[in-house]
């Protein structure tokens, strides 16, 4: 082999396994993350995940920002359901400040949060379909995600990175168009969701691809810190909306779907079932909001003048309002000293905010408990010994969002 021109790495001839780089930019990773797979034929022997490609130092940035400017950072965590992140953050601040929000605000938040959950699950479930070769469902449901985004747009003006709401409520009341769109969604979406479900749920090919792949036991899932649909698919009925109700979730009736094997099919089913439950919550919340009449129907925020921009007309005519306006815009409001952990049920699990304040204008330390960062480390255990194509399905059914992984 003396005259060979190609220099192979040491030991590469004797090696019996193949190294495959999956990602960081690969159509199957659905985000910027890398998997270095060691393959024996088509079987996965081991894998090493590399993350951090879109790390943006949010925790550091947050240490120099007043509370309301951090909302825009939370948008960019799980960007498939950013309103949940926004509201989770606002609720954390409200917990620190001791703000009590009116019922109507809670219900409006619930509407938006459940719509986000639907759009989050919709993307994840349809992407699982795409990876199994079924593109139709994905394209079909896109128009209803679009409708959800139009509702966001009507409420806050933005679609993807929403920066929705303020500490204490919303920046303005929901418009009539927003309610019309919610009504339209409630009317049309069940039909579409049913049709989407029928495409997959008893589909022989889909079942063969997803059943018994990427499974995890409840015990291992808990040890790995799984939360959200992935944990419930393994059979643990832990849902923050029930266990630690926030934003008046205790006023709603809904079921928590659970699976039992924790495999890709169960995860898909749990998400699917959750969308139906979310739909029912949106409907209940919408009815409750409609019940507010007269003056009550104009309530869209709590009374927190130090954190809530006053009406423009008041700013020009009243001294108090002018002072608050100035202080808020310049970020000169001191926040109380304290240490608070608040978690909400995000699209893919428990999204926690650990906020430490030393009494300054900005957090002393802010840590995001990002659900998919915690459970992605189980990926190796999930796919060890399985086929490469199953590993791809497992990755998409875990609902990994690169923005949340890397913070």
């Amino acid at each position, binding site marked *: 082999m003396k005259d060979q021109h190609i220099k192979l790495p040491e030991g590469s001839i004797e090696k019996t396994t193949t190294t495959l780089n999956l990602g960081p930019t690969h159509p199957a990773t659905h985000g910027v993350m890398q998997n270095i797979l060691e393959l024996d034929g088509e079987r996965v022997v081991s894998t090493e995940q590399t*993350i*951090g490609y879109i*790390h943006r*130092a949010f*925790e*550091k*940035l947050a*240490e*120099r920002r007043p509370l309301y400017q951090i909302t825009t950072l939370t948008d960019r965590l799980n960007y498939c359901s950013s309103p949940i992140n926004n509201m989770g953050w606002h609720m954390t601040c409200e*917990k*620190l400040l001791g703000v009590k929000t009116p019922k109507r605000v809670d219900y409006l938040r619930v509407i938006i949060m459940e719509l986000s959950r639907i759009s989050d699950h919709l993307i994840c479930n349809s992407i699982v379909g795409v990876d199994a070769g079924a593109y139709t469902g994905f394209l079909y449901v896109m128009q209803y995600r679009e409708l959800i985004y139009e509702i966001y747009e009507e409420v806050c003006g933005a679609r993807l990175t929403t920066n929705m709401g303020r500490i204490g409520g919303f920046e303005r009341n929901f418009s009539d168009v927003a309610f019309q769109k919610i009504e339209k969604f409630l009317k049309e979406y069940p039909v579409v969701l049913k049709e989407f479900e029928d495409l997959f749920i008893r589909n022989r090919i889909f079942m063969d691809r997803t059943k018994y792949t990427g499974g995890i036991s409840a015990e*291992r899932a*808990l*040890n*790995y*810190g799984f939360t959200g649909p992935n944990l419930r698919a393994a059979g*643990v009925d*832990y849902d923050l909306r029930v*266990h*630690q109700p926030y934003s008046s979730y205790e006023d709603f009736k809904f079921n928590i779907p659970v699976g039992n094997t924790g495999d890709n099919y169960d995860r898909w089913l749990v998400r699917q079932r959750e969308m139906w439950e979310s739909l029912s919550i949106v409907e209940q919340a919408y009815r409750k909001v409609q019940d507010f009449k007269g003056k009550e129907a104009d309530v869209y925020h709590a009374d927190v003048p130090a954190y809530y921009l006053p009406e423009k007309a008041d700013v020009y005519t009243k001294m108090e309002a002018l002072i608050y306006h100035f202080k808020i815009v310049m970020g000169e409001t001191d926040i109380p000293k*304290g*240490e*608070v*952990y608040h*978690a909400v049920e995000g699209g893919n699990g*428990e999204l*926690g905010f*650990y906020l*430490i304040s030393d009494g300054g204008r900005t957090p*002393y*330390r802010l*840590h995001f*408990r990002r659900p998919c*960062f*915690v459970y*992605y*480390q*189980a990926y190796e255990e999930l796919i060890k010994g399985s086929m490469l194509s199953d590993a791809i399905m497992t990755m998409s059914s875990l609902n990994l969002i690169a923005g949340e992984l*890397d*913070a």
Partner: protein
Amino acid sequence: MSLTSEYIQQRLQDKFGEQVGSFEQPYGMLTFEAPKEINLKVLNFLFDDPHLQFRFLTDLTAVHYPDQTGRELAVVYHLHNLSANVRLRFKVFTDIQTPDVYTASGLFSAANWMERETYDFFGVNFVGHPNLKRILNVDEMDYFPLRKEFPLEDQTRIDKDDAMFGRG
């Protein structure tokens, strides 16, 4: 026996005596600290004790307090007893010259990446960790960016000339 903060505190004090302390309840969550040498003993006790059963590691992170000499870094564990639905917060302080803390990754698989992240940003050396290397930052980085000695740009600085930004 319901799992109240007082009961947890009592059980911990019965087991570890004076070593556990600083019991507080900020915003309703029981918070306490222990010396770093016994962090694994405390975690194991919380995990195994038939009455406590804190078996879910929600979060693990660190905080840097540059002014507290000898206790600059706090490693913070958030634990959850899912069946009783009780959370608690457990802190371990360490000095910054020898930031060695025993790893919890043998007890909780979830701690693996959380500890890597904590090492990455604060330089806490988790003794016994199977793969303690940077996770979000580049491997070549030679400092720990979330420590307080690396300030972000100061918004009040006066050497920034507005003319450079087309203003003033």
